[in-house]
């Protein structure tokens, strides 16, 4: 009974943070992007600097009509937002904020997170294929090509960290972290960051939704709450990838007073990465489709492989 209660409690906490953190990141994007462009961003909703803008947006989305195109593959079309959203919820549940603050401490946490977040791609493919719309189909194909290309450098750079720590547990990797990692895992970290931004389909890698080319890609036909779920999954993805980056490459809860302030450090580092991801969107233009593939296969994969080789040599030499 007690164990069941604990499971429920942990699930509720994960669900609440899953609903709150993406909104925080979204609001941060509103404000940071606005000020980077010399604007103020939302100022009215909620009174103080428009803090409730995304809540108001949510209320607006709920009120909108839920349209399913007549030619659409009905059930696939309606299921796709959930398939895109839920994997990030699952992934978030195993990301530790400190050695003890973790909803579900999975042994092979790294594999679990990567596998779960890769499922989200299916949601985009389903949406693109079932919409019966040429733009949605193009976007879906672009998403598939992009996510396939960038999954590899992502996994390779994570493998390097796992190799360096000698474990695939997220808490184990963060515990094995030392400030020296910032230096000799730097190429892998950069590859992970670029690949993560591409996985999230954020600018400058937003060709699948490229609204100036193919309307909104797979989301073209979506309205109301289902469209909002896709947007939410994007920001949930930022949260997951930022926290993952903080845990894998920035040492998570390592920092002054890490005994008491461990989770704060993880969240702070994650927020820093989230701001960086937002910053890239503001500063950089979109890549072309062939440039995207070129970057993945000719730059990121070789760099990630070199990092993996460097790490294995280091591990072998230092374990002697």
């Amino acid at each position: 009974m007690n164990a069941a209660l604990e499971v429920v409690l942990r699930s509720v906490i994960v669900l609440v943070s899953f609903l709150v953190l993406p909104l925080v990141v979204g609001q941060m994007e509103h404000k940071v992007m606005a000020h980077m462009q010399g604007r103020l961003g939302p100022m009215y909703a909620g009174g103080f600097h428009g803090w409730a803008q995304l809540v108001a947006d949510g209320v607006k989305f709920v009120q909108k009509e839920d349209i399913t195109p007549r030619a659409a593959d009905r059930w696939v079309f309606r299921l796709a937002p959930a398939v895109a959203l839920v994997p990030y919820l699952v992934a978030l549940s195993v990301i530790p904020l400190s050695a003890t603050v973790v909803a579900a401490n999975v042994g092979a946490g790294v594999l679990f997170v990567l596998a779960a977040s890769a499922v989200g791609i299916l949601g985009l493919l389903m949406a693109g294929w079932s919409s019966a719309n040429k733009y949605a189909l193009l976007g879906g194909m672009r998403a598939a090509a992009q996510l396939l290309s960038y999954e590899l450098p992502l996994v390779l750079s994570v493998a390097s960290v796992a190799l360096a720590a000698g474990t695939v547990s997220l808490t184990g990797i963060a515990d094995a972290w030392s400030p020296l990692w910032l230096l000799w895992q730097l190429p892998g970290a950069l590859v992970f960051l670029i690949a993560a931004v591409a996985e999230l389909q954020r600018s400058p890698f937003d060709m699948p939704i490229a609204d100036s080319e193919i309307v909104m890609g797979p989301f073209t036909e979506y309205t109301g709450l289902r469209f909002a779920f896709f947007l939410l999954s994007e920001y949930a993805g930022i949260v997951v990838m930022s926290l993952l980056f903080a845990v894998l490459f920035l040492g998570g809860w390592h920092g002054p007073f890490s005994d008491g302030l461990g989770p704060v450090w993880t969240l702070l580092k994650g927020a820093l990465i989230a701001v960086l991801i937002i910053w890239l969107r503001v500063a950089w233009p979109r890549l072309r489709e062939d440039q995207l593939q070129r970057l993945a296969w000719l730059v990121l994969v070789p760099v990630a492989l070199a990092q993996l080789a460097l790490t294995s040599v280091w591990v072998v030499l230092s374990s002697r």
Partner: protein
Amino acid sequence: MTDHQHSQADPPNERGVLPGLLKGLATTARTLARPTHTAEYPDAQPQLPPRTRGVIALLEENCTNCMLCARECPDWCIYIDSHKETLPATTPGGRERQRNVLDRFAIDFSLCMYCGICIEVCPFDALHWSPEFEYAEVDVLDLLHEKSRLGQWMPTVPPPPALDPNSAEPAEITAANKPARKAPEARP
């Protein structure tokens, strides 16, 4: 991959793409650190320059119904109705006088393109630019301002801007400052 192929695929920038990317990051970061230029309009009134073309005000007393404005208006959005009134002679045996009476003066701001030709062309300074701009309506027909409404804009017309330093004095002031002609001396 050879360098030749590389230069074909990449933008024609000799130093590669990295400096441009860093420059983009630096520019956005610098903008983030600076205060924004946004004027929060409904909360703070905008600082409008003098001679702002907000709405056209009518000083009815100056209007002589000459119709110049209505005829010059490029989109014919000025409506003027008038009639002549005969004033009885003020002195016995005098002549009766006629004068124009303005019945209707209306500007349809749903048609007006704010060119200001009517104001330029008015010989009697009956029309003026006012900087007021908050007269949006739900119904487009309500944008037809009759002369009473046009007259209400008159208090919002700013005084004309001061002359440039060192410019010549206006003709009216020059004329007023001329020494009065001496009275002819009385003959002995």
